[in-house]
Each structure stands twice: as structure tokens, then as C-alpha cells.
């Protein structure tokens, strides 16, 4: 059909940050899916807790607190660096972004190592009873998120050094930082359930 030109969009920018970027909305969608996964897994934990008299099941002991606290502190500390990296990305600071992403890759390695110290200290196995199964479910889901986001950050970080940085890369780094925040925040209720519920519920 015939058209009538009423405007010109060629002067608009070719990238945006956060809610103005379509990639960020895609990430929001996937975070919503994963949040539902976490919520339902937490629901399953509480459901199984609700139908059983003892928690954990004898002779299992509650998970050792210290490894979980260490991982939590490390995750929260990484979030400080993560937020700094996000601010550097928004400021188009190439050096700062490279430094921040390198730091996040290193932080990821330390957190993954800390997580593998947590697992034997859960004092249960996934196949002994429903308490063990659902505890390992929560840990598995969160560990999967740490590993996948670490791998993603690693690949992205590699490209920051091997390829020229263009404005859209700052937006990508900013989005990736947002996802790590999700990984950190989602850990807090899981930590409370895995470590405190066996003691206080």
C-alpha cells in the first residue's frame, strides 16, 4: 500500500544499556524462567519438609555451616566487583571493563572451588533419602548457574582481549554483570534453606 514518510530514525543510537536493550529483556526472560525453577525447587524442599517429622533424616547431620558461610561471603564480595565492572561498562571505560571482567573470572574460579568444599560438608547424599535428594537439588541448580555464568564470562572476557572493543561490547558486559547479580541474589534463600532449615525448621 502507499506510504507517507513522517519521520526518520537514522539518528537514533545503535546500542543501549539495561532495560533499553533487547538483549537485557531476553536475559530478564531467562532469569524469570530460572527464578521459577528456583521457586519451585524451594517449594519442593518445603513440601518434603512438611510431610516428614525429622529434618534431616536420622542419622544424617545438618550441613556444616562454615563452608556455606565462606561461599556466601565470596559471592557477596564478588558482587561488589561485579557492580563496579557494570559501572565501568556504562562509562565506556575499556581498561576498567577488562580489569573487572578478569577479576570476575578469577572470582568465579575461587567460588567454584569453595562450592566443591561445600558439597561433602552437606553430610548427606542425593540417593539416601528425600532430604538428601532435595538438598542436592538446590545445590545442583545453583552450582549449574555459577558454572555456566563463569564459562560465559570467561569466553566473553577472552574476546575483550582478542578483538577490538566497540560500543556494543560495553552493553554486553553490562548485561552479563546483571546476570551475575541474579546468581548471587538467588543464592541467599537457597543458603538459608540448605543451612538453616535443618537447624531451625
Amino acid at each position, binding site marked *: 500500500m502507499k506510504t507517507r514518510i513522517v519521520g526518520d530514525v537514522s539518528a537514533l543510537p545503535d546500542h543501549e544499556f539495561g532495560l533499553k536493550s*533487547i538483549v537485557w529483556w531476553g536475559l530478564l526472560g531467562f532469569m524469570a524462567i530460572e527464578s521459577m*525453577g528456583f521457586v519451585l525447587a524451594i517449594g519442593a524442599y518445603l513440601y518434603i519438609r512438611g510431610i516428614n517429622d525429622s529434618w534431616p533424616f536420622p542419622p544424617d547431620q545438618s550441613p556444616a555451616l562454615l563452608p556455606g558461610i565462606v561461599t556466601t561471603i565470596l559471592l557477596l564480595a564478588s558482587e561488589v566487583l561485579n557492580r563496579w565492572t557494570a559501572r565501568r561498562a556504562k562509562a565506556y571505560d575499556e581498561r576498567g571493563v577488562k580489569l573487572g571482567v578478569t577479576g570476575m573470572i578469577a572470582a568465579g574460579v575461587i567460588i567454584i572451588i569453595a562450592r566443591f568444599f561445600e558439597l561433602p560438608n552437606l553430610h548427606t547424599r542425593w*540417593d539416601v533419602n528425600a532430604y538428601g535428594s532435595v538438598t542436592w537439588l538446590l545445590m545442583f541448580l545453583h552450582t549449574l548457574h555459577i558454572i555456566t555464568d563463569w564459562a560465559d564470562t570467561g569466553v566473553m572476557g577472552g574476546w575483550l582481549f582478542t578483538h577490538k572493543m566497540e560500543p556494543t561490547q560495553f552493553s554486553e558486559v553490562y548485561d552479563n554483570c546483571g546476570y551475575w547479580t541474579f546468581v548471587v541474589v538467588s543464592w541467599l534463600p537457597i543458603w538459608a534453606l540448605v543451612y538453616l532449615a535443618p537447624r531451625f525448621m
Partner: protein
Amino acid sequence: MTRPPRKPRKPVASGAISDRVLEPAAEAELELTWKDPPGFWGWLVTTDHKRIARRYLVTAFLFFGLAGLGAVAMRLQLSKPENTLLSAARYNEIFTMHGTTMMFLFAVPIMEAVAVFLVPLMIGARALAFPRLNAFSYFVYLAGALTLWIGFILNIGPDVGWFAYTPLSGPEYSPGHRSDIWAQMITFTEIAALAVAVNLTTTIFKMRSPGMTLSRVPLFVWAMLITSIMTILALPAVMLASSLLMSDRLLATQFYNPAEGGDHILYQHLFWFFGHPEVYIIFLPGLAFVSSITATFSRRPVMGHIPMVLSQIAIGFLAFGLWVHHMFATGLPHLGDSFYTAASMAIALPSGVQIFCWIATLWAGKPVWKTPLLWVVGFIVTFVIGGLTGVMVASVPLDLQLHDTYFVVAHFHYVLIGGAVFPLFGAFQYWFPKFTGRLLSETAGKWQFWLFFIGFQLTFFPMHILGLLGMPRRVYTYPSGLGWEPYNQIATLGGVMLFTSVLIFVINVLVSLRRGALAGDNPWDGPTLEWATTSPPPPYNFMLTPVVDSREPLWEHREELPVMEGLSTAKREVLTSSPSEAEPISRQASPEPSIWPFLSAIATTIVLLGTIFSEWALVWGALPLGVVLTGWFWPKRPRAGGEAQ
């Protein structure tokens, strides 16, 4: 790197009014930019939402046919008492394949496929937000569908019903891999459906044409948005349910083992937390089709646009509060039962509001009785009957009597076929010209409709009576003398009519593809933007970006459509806009065709099929998956200190 200079955040208004579109050279460049490579390679690498939607439609329809053949086999088996056409075991497999295929391989994907084709066109966008994700979703869906059906052909198909309740599907009662195939088919199809849902949600929020504020978004797009959000919130539940089932079977976890503190009812909660919204995930797109068809063929906008949107949102919310009504027979606390009864009855209200709005639209309009509108009327009649029986089984005492009888089979077929398949056939007839450039035959369409409508009532209405007489679901045969024979025979006769109707549709499609009348851009004088472009649309959808200032832009601007220029013709570029007011924000790059979505789907398939046999597939399978995902996102920008690759 220093901060790039900021460009203006608003488009520049053009004072000039011009009839020109693009210069011929720019038009040729645009065509070249968005064109796929030729041949089979182009088929593999395309990211064009329309091509991918068409293959989704064809694939989902093929599985509809296969599941329909299963239904015919079941109806023939039940046409007389103590029939030996099918064995008990084969019957179990067939009803499982029928339900699983219809729900996971047909209903959800085909509705999403229609949305994938039409949503970008209706909002005036050049592409979906994530074209490669869309391509990936199709290949993953196809792999899941083939897993299920190849399993069936190899005689390791699932036989535990479409919802695969534990303990029947668990390690104790289902040794072998039948249940594993069902569970992994869930993972495949849900990954695909979730990818599409995220894609549609982002596209609708972020890529609407300038001026298409939320209050001007077509009802079709609203329905697809709500469906997509529901998909995002509901589908993780079934993935979790089936993953825990796999885990119990493969890793000896104890989620569903009461002997070790687990619970079978947990499975039912997780399944139905998905399963009930799923009904509305299938049904809301049906409403989308009905709204579009009703407006076009009533020659007026749908009455009560805002109540319609609010009703759809209300359905989206309430759908998550009903799941326990599938579990009344499990002996849950009475207070809970009362809540879910109330919620189940409450959802009839927003459904009723919409029915009245469509009837009012027809009443106040000048209906043109083309085939798509016949399907709308068929939908209203059938869906209202299904809705009323739904209110009946929302009542706990009645549900306990009717649970697991043919009454429930009748109810959900009235709702699902009435609410989704009737509108879907109407949608095929209505949008076929946009999909293909040619019209379907009206005569064949009317034959198809009447055979389907009468055949449907003959098949499923007697099942209400069979249920009241006490005939249980999922029995492969029954003794004579119970008074069930005549109703089963009528149902089988109706089934044959349904089969004939679908056959006419297939022939109509095949003949019309070659000899159908050429449609032109807007054969029905439709009001929404998909009719502003050619039939079928070019790879870039619109040469220039439409500008919208009403809910029915093509009825508002019959002579000339206001547009904006300025998107690149030399590279793939899409316009992004603000979520509420649709103010243009930026021009963002859109991906080129790529083989990586296909390779990623293969790597995903290797992981998912591997985990049927070994938990270590999750570990070693991650390596090829990581490699292909790295390839997918490999940067095209220049090397540091070097030239562009």
C-alpha cells in the same frame, strides 16, 4: 576507549509528505541484506521468522495427523465390546502418544508458530528480537518430537499416560526407557517453547512500531504476550517434575519415593502447576485468532477492547490458582478444595466476558459469513458447552463421581478442541493468504467446517453420557451389556467424520498452494499491520517502519500508511522502542543467517539423549555444547590490532 558521542534519542520528524518508498537501488540492497542463502543450506541457516514459523506449522500439523490417527485407532477399538483390534499394552501406548503429541508436539508449538509468523508483522517489526534463538527452538522441538515417535516405532514409546504419574512412571513400575523417553521429550519441547516465549515477550515489549502504545496493541498481540508470560512461569514446573522423575530413575534419588520421605503427590502438584496454565496457554492464542477474525468479518472493532484485555490478564492470573482441581480425588484438605473450587468457577467470568464481547461485536457489526467466521461461531458453541461442564467438575462432590470417567474426556476435548482447534482452523483459513500468497477454497473450507463441527459433537457429546454411566478413561475394552455400545458407536462414527474433515483440509491446502486464487496484500480488508505488506511478506517484512495512531491502522489510513525511514538497508537492523509508549529508542543489529543454532540443537540433543542412558552425559555433553555456543556468539568485529575477519 572513550565514550561514543550520544545520538539524539528521538526520531527526527519529517516535515515533508511524500509518496516515495525507497529508491530502487536501496530496495535492492534491502532485499539482498535480508535474503537467505539459496537451497538446503538456506533452509538450515535461515533466521527468518516467517520461514521458521511455516516449518513449525507444517511439522506440528504432521504430528496432529499422527496423533489423530492414534485417536481413530482408539475409536475403532472401542466401537464394540471386547474388541481385539488393539492389545491392552498397545492401547496404553497409543493413548499416551495421542495425549503427549497433541499437548506437547501440536497444541503449544502450533500456537506459538502462528505467533512467530504474525507478531512481528502485526507490530510492524522487521524480525523477532532473537532470530537465531527462534531457529534453535525449532530444531530442538523437532528433535524432541522425533525422539518420542522414533521411540514409539522402536517399541520403546511411553505407555504411562500424557501426564506420566508416579509411581507408574517411576523406576519400580516402569523399567526400561519408555518413561525416560517421555521425560526427555518434555525437556526438548519445553526448551523450545520457553525460547519462543522469551522471544515473543521481548519482541512485543521492545519492538513495536512508533505510536503503538499499549492501549493500541491488537488483541491478538495482547493474547500472545500473556500466553508467553504464562509459558515462562508455568513450563519450568513440568521440566522440574520430569527432571526429578528422570533423576529418581537414573540417579536413585528419592523425590517420589514415600519409603524414603518422598511423595507421589509432589509430582502431581508440580505437574498440574504447569498442566492447568497449559490449558490456557493453548486457549489464549485461540482467543487471539477469534478476536482478529471477528473484527475483520464483523466489519468493526471488537466491542469492549479494554474489558477484553483485562479478561485475558485475569485468565493469566487465575490460571495459576486452579491446579489442585485436577487433584480433588487425592484426598487433600477440604479447605483447600473449597478454595480451588471457587477459583475454578471464577475463571469462567473473564471467559464469559470475552464471549459476550464477541457476540456483541457480531450483533453490532455487519457479519460477512466467510469460513473463518463459521469457525468462530463453532468455537463459541463448543467452548461454552465445555466451559459449563468445567464449572460442573469444579464442584468437588461431582468431580469425585466423574473423576477418571469419559465425562472428563468429553469436557477437556470440548474445551481444548473447541477453544483452540476450532479457532486454529479459522486462523488457517484467514491467514493462509498471508502465509502463502494464495486463498484457500471457500467451498472446501465450508465442507471441512461442517464435517468437523458435526463430527466433533457426535464424537464427544456421547462421552458425557458414557461418563455418567460410569465408563472409565484409559480402558482398552469393556464388556457388553452395560449400555455403552450405542454411545461408543456414535463416537466412532463422529471420529470418522473428523478424520474426513481434516483430510479435506489437507487436500484444500495442497490444491490451493498451486491453484488457489492470488490473494493480494489484504484480501479480507483486515485492520492490522500484517495486511499492510505483501502476501507472503518479503524477508524484511516492511520496507519502511509503519507508524501507528489507532488500534485499526489500516482502517484508519485506507489511502496511505504513515511510515518512518532511516533503518539501514545495508545491514540487518531493527528498531527498538519503549515498552509502554512505543517511542523509538535505538536501531539495533539483527543477526545474519547462521548454522550455529542447528549445530547447537544437535549438541543439545546429544546431551539430552545421552542422559537417558548415563548421568555423565551431562558432563561430557557439556563440551560440544560449549563449543557450538562459543561458535554461535563468536564476534564478527575486528581483531585487536588487526583487520576485520
